[in-house]
């Protein structure tokens, strides 16, 4: 009986280890596949062409700059809307709302998470785009801004949910201690609870923005997909890297130049998110170490 249990434990621990390592394996696998398929593009296409200002594969113009710009400006707009809204909502749900309201609000925000991007994209070009065109007096409502609003709506629930869980995980003793020292509820939230939950809130923001950068369908339907760079690009059509891949991937035969460039774009997307996440991860680790030092 004892030997069986030991064997059982060993097997379970083995499985756990395999799964623990799996994340690294997947990331490595994805990166390797992308590299293998996309790097040859750097050889086949002159760098000056890749840094060009026009993306038009039909005439082999593979300028990546307008695509980078499009992704950047739409994600930036989404972050501006979703981060303050998301954190504020999370704070409200976790700290300000009475118990009964919390139980209603949490699933409510999660409903937004469930809305598929296709549905939001559909509503976006039927309702939001015309609205933006008429209220802001633009030539067309299919703009980066429209995309940003939809992306913010999609990133919001992720930010709220994870941040709220993080705030909730802060031990009651922290709050009680602050209140006992005479702090108001708001002071407790602002100076004690939020800082204590900082790492979780940061994770929430990252997961949310990550969702925004990677969104494909909704932006494909509402941003107009025009590959152009303008200083006021937020109010004009733009083309993201993700929409480009989704729209053009089906037609490329594996191995030809267009195929390789699309994979190159995927590599760029991967690297951007990798660097952002690396920075955020190291911030998290440093914050955690600081917290441990403070408590010890």
């Amino acid at each position: 009986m004892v030997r069986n249990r030991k064997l059982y434990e060993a097997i379970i621990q083995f499985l756990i280890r395999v799964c623990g390592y799996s994340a690294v394996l997947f990331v490595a696998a994805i990166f390797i596949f992308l590299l293998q398929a996309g790097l040859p593009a750097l050889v086949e296409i002159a760098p000056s062409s890749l840094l060009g200002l026009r993306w038009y594969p039909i005439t082999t113009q593979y300028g990546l700059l307008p695509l980078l710009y499009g992704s950047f400006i739409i994600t930036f707009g989404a972050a501006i809307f979703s981060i303050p809204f998301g954190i504020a909502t999370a704070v409200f749900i976790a700290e300000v709302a009475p118990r009964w309201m919390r139980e209603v609000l949490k699933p409510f925000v999660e409903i937004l998470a469930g809305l598929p991007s296709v549905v939001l994209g559909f509503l976006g070009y039927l309702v939001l785009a015309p609205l933006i065109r008429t209220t802001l007096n633009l030539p067309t409502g299919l703009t980066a801004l429209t995309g940003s609003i939809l992306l913010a709506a999609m990133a919001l629930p992720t930010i709220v949910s994870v941040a709220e869980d993080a705030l909730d995980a802060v031990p009651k003793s922290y709050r009680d201690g602050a209140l006992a020292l005479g702090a108001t509820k708001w002071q407790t939230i602002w100076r004690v609870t939020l800082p204590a939950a900082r790492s979780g809130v940061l994770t929430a923001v990252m997961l949310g923005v990550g969702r925004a950068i990677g969104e494909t369908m909704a932006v494909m339907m509402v941003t107009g997909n025009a590959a152009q760079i303008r200083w006021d690009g937020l109010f004009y059509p733009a083309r993201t890297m993700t929409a480009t891949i989704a729209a053009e991937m089906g037609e490329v035969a594996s191995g030809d130049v267009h195929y390789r460039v699309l994979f190159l774009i995927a590599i760029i997307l991967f690297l951007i998110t990798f660097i952002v996440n690396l920075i955020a991860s190291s911030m998290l680790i440093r914050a955690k170490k600081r917290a441990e030092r403070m408590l010890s």
Partner: protein
Amino acid sequence: MRRACRFLPVILCLILPACSPPESSSATSSNAITDRGSDTLVNLALAWAETYAKIDPSVSISVSGGGSGVGITSLIEKTTDIANASRAIKPEEVQSAKDNGVEPMEFIVARDAIGVIVNPANPINQLTLQQVSDIYSGKTSNWKDLGGEDRPIVRVSREVTSGTHVYFLESVIRLGNSKDTTIFAADTLLLPSSEGIMSEVGQNPNAIGYDGLGYITPTVKKIRLSKDPAGPFIEPTVATALDGTYPISRDLYMYTNGEPTGKVKEYLDWILGPEGQKVVSDLGFVPIS
């Protein structure tokens, strides 16, 4: 021993992916036909599939869109039996196919007229092909230059994977001149679907768009076109496409790998026959001859 065991999971992770299943069956099993490609053709293809299913229930036909480029690529990679295309296969594609052991065989299954559309509130009713070309290449940017209102022109188009897009580039923007290298203006909206085009043109007074006749809805206004500035300016209809007076109409194709046999042959023969062609005109496309 314990130390070595620690590495076992890593090794396992590396071995596992090497296991693969039996080769899954390719596109053709004798009673299933896959039909992929042009979004212009997809509804027609679907209507054919549904009607044919009533005639020969033993055959199951699956239909997918994605664009002419998708269909031809699938044909080259042998993942489809029939490729739908709203443009002719390119010489490079024929070469890729042959390199992969595929002999593309072309069938013209219907014809289509490309309509240029504007918002119903737009006072303009007719344009020459040269004017349309100038609009889309970026030379003309305001409706007032064409005698309309003082509004910026918003150019709407299909995506680059669309055969319709390629056809428009070659026949309208470049006016059929194969040496011309003009391309769409950088700020052209490349919408993923016909529905998006109708929606934008239908509610944005600044917009101009184009699409196959079968997709144009009553919510937009069709422009009469002429090659010659002197006229006559022709409305896009099935009749004018058939008799050739409308300047931009094109063939719609289906490609197979080599001479079709068996159920695929029966299906194609039916499509080219009177019943198949009746479906074509029911849907607003132009039957062959």
